């Protein structure tokens, strides 16, 4: 067997093992029991939303597209469920891409149906405007100048959900759920100009980037990846896709650790490159 063939066979064996490690826990998810976990950075967001009075306005910036949907949707659903349960007014926006509006529409509509909430009264979805930081700066000056119409072309000024809101400073909480650098933009421009409490949600690999902002209190809390989303589901007592996804993720992480251990045993045994 040539070196290249050996490389390809090893690779395909790993791919098959990963596929099995994902599929089996999905099939037998009812039989796998994992403990509930919690962390203070996730709980801070829960506690803040919990402390808000009814009908308080909050802004949720959905800054991801379908490629990160599977990882970020569960935390978005959990935060939305919590906010709707608390009867808060939610303004959905995005500084990321036009596709984020599609994701936002889908997520907001599905949770709003669960809680019998009405668009324009309990929540609103803003269209995508290019500009990123400029959009946030404009929101700090005038929400209606930035978004004269919602994603359906309806005037925002006439909607009850915008009652007593003029600028971003009127929001009692803002949260950016992002798969890119939108959280940084919200910290620099939104938090510093708007002065409202800011929380963030991001993919697991990005979570470490935001710990300095947690220590400096520029971020109130952080939901980093599926694990943290599962923790939020535990806090709101509504276990959903994040909790279910922990099962295949646990098995795949274990598999990767086993593979690393095997590779190191082979490396130290042979004292030469495996592949």
């Amino acid at each position, binding site marked *: 067997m040539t070196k290249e063939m050996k490389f390809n066979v090893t690779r395909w064996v*790993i791919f098959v*093992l*990963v596929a099995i490690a994902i599929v089996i826990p999905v099939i037998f998810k009812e039989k796998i029991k994992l*403990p509930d976990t919690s962390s203070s950075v996730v709980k801070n967001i829960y506690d803040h939303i919990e402390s808000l009075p009814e009908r308080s306005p909050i802004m949720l910036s959905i800054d991801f597209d379908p490629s990160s949907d*599977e990882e970020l949707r569960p935390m978005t659903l959990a935060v939305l469920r919590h906010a709707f349960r608390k009867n808060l007014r939610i303004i959905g926006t995005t500084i990321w891409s036009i596709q984020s509006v599609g994701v936002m*529409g889908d997520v907001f509509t599905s949770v709003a149906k669960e809680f019998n909430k009405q668009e324009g009264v309990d929540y609103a979805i803003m269209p995508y405007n290019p500009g990123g930081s400029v959009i946030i700066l404009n929101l700090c000056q005038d929400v209606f100048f930035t978004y004269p119409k919602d994603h*359906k072309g309806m005037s925002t000024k006439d909607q009850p959900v915008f009652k007593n809101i003029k600028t971003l400073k009127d929001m009692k909480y803002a949260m950016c759920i992002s798969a890119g650098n939108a959280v940084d933009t919200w910290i620099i421009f939104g938090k510093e100009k708007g002065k409202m409490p800011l929380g963030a949600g991001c993919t697991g690999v990005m979570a*470490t*980037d935001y710990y300095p902002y947690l220590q400096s209190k520029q971020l109130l809390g952080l939901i980093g990846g599926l*694990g943290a989303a599962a923790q939020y589901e535990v806090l709101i007592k509504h276990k959903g896709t994040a909790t279910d996804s922990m099962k295949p993720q646990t098995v795949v992480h274990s598999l990767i650790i086993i593979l690393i251990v095997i590779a190191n045993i082979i490396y130290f045994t042979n004292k030469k490159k495996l592949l």
Partner: protein
Amino acid sequence: MLGLGSLVHFHYTQVVRSKPGWGFSIVLFTTFLITIMAGFGPSIFPEFTQSLGLSATLGMEEGSSLDWIFQNSIKPLSATMFSIIGFFIASAAFRAFRARSIEATLLLIAAVIIMLGQTPLGQMLWQAIPDTMVWIFNVPTTAAKRAILFGIALGSIAFSLRIIFGIERAYLGGTKD
């Protein structure tokens, strides 16, 4: 519009000159036209659109043709692309994560603790695993991240001052002072 023009020009050239992978350019033009039709179609052919079981509204409203494309094509395709990364990470970890030096060993240990700590398995095995993961995030990772942020900020200030005082001229295209 500039991006659109550039995209069309690039793929048109690919097809006309039969460059390698020109078939993908045909796929691009086909999907491009289908999406345009889905966008404008409902206003031009409202009855035909409704006969397909779709709403004849414009935009991304639920049930519209664009929403159908988004839900049934863009979403699953994007998710598939992202999911493939997991398989490559497993393969790369097997081939690259070796305890060759002290630094590599430290990295390996940190990676294992974080992988376990990110799942409930870490807590099941030993409560110290998630606690150590939080310590890694809060202390060494944050320190390194801060150092990088300070480095970038100081570097940007220094570079800006060099430009302001005319010391740095490379950005003008020149190679000599």
